[in-house]
Every structure is written in structure tokens, then in C-alpha cells.
């Protein structure tokens, strides 16, 4: 690991950190739930690449284990969130349809 490569990796880490910041800003702005989820998913990917570059830069192989765990947790978050949100949305829709049916039936 020459010092040149080391400094190049440092610059890359800084650029990636700025990208994570931009993603966070977009996740705060994002008007819909889907926008936020896409941004959060992408932040997970960026953080995984950051951890992998750190593992190579510091020559600590065990950091890669952490990135496996991070990938798993971010995937799990997206899965659970999507399922719960879809369930709640469909329940609301079914209830409003039921109310409309009742209103129509009374007329």
C-alpha cells in the first residue's frame, strides 16, 4: 500500500461521505414514502462501500464482517417497511370502500 493509493482512498472516502449527505438531504425532502425508501436504500449501499474501502485502507479484514451485517440489516429494514406500509394502505383502502358501499346501500 503506497502512500499515493492511501491518499486516493482517503479522497474517495470523503466524496462518498458527501454523497451520503446528499442522499440524506433528498430523503428529508422526498415528498413520497417511496422517495425516502429509495434514498435510504442507496445510503445503505454507499455505507457498505465505505466500510469495504476502510477495511482495505486499514488492513483490518474483520471490518468486512460488519459490512455483511450492515447489508443484511438495511435489506431487512426495506422488506419490513414495505410490507407493513402496503398492509396498512390496503387496510385503509378496504375500510373506505366498505364505508362507501354502506353509504350507497342506504341511498
Amino acid at each position, binding site marked *: 500500500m503506497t502512500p499515493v493509493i492511501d491518499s486516493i482512498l482517503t479522497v474517495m472516502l470523503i466524496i462518498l461521505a458527501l*454523497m451520503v449527505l*446528499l*442522499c440524506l438531504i433528498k430523503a428529508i425532502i422526498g415528498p413520497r414514502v417511496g422517495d425516502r*425508501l429509495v434514498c435510504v436504500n442507496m445510503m445503505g449501499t454507499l455505507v457498505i*462501500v465505505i466500510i469495504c474501502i476502510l477495511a*482495505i485502507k486499514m488492513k483490518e479484514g474483520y471490518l468486512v464482517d460488519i459490512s455483511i451485517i450492515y447489508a443484511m440489516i438495511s435489506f431487512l429494514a426495506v422488506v419490513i417497511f414495505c410490507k407493513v406500509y402496503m398492509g396498512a394502505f390496503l387496510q385503509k383502502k378496504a375500510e373506505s370502500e366498505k364505508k362507501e358501499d354502506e353509504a350507497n346501500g342506504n341511498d
Partner: protein
Amino acid sequence: METINMICQIAGIVFLFLAMLVFVFQIVGIFRYKFLLNKMHVAGMGDTLALFLAAIGLILLSGFNMTSVKLALVFVFMWFTSPTSSHLIAGMEVLTDKTVKNHVDVQVDNVEAFVDGREGRK
């Protein structure tokens, strides 16, 4: 041996820069596109490509040892999970967005049953 090492490291840095470029495209796409499925397309496709490039770059930089095998494992894992989460987000979006038919041509009549997988089950 020295020259091979040198070439490997330069190639690794080049691959990492390409991955960085794809990430920049992703950020631009997320900010520029108005419709969510476009954003999701950019983010999801970019994820897999950038991870592929970054994996090759990092493995070339580290050389062949236990760390590189683990790195390959991470990226294979991400190739499974990233498209799956993109699929889930797209399903959620098509289900919850009422104006989705203004943007794309939805070819399924009953979206709920399609997202539920009931159509594939019969």
C-alpha cells in the same frame, strides 16, 4: 512481480473511480427525475453496477487472501438483496400511487392481486 503488482493496483484504482462515477450518476438521477419509478430504476441498476465495479477494484487492491473472499461474499449478498428491495419498492409504489397510470403503461388489471402474488400462484 513488481510490475504485476503495480498494474493490479492501478487497475483497482481505475475500477474504484468508475464505481464512483456510477454513484455520481445515481445521485444526479435521484435529484433530477420527477417520477419515482425512474428514480428507483437509476438507484437499483446503479447499485448493482457500482457494487460490481467496486468489488473488482477492491479485490484487485487487496490481492488474493481471506479479505478478498469475504469482499466477494459481501457483493454476492448485495446482488441478491438490492434487486429484491427494488422489486418491493416498485410494487409498493405501483400499489399506493393513484396517478401511476399517467406515467407508465400498467399491463395488469388487478394490481393488488399481482403484488400479492395470487396471479402467479394459480
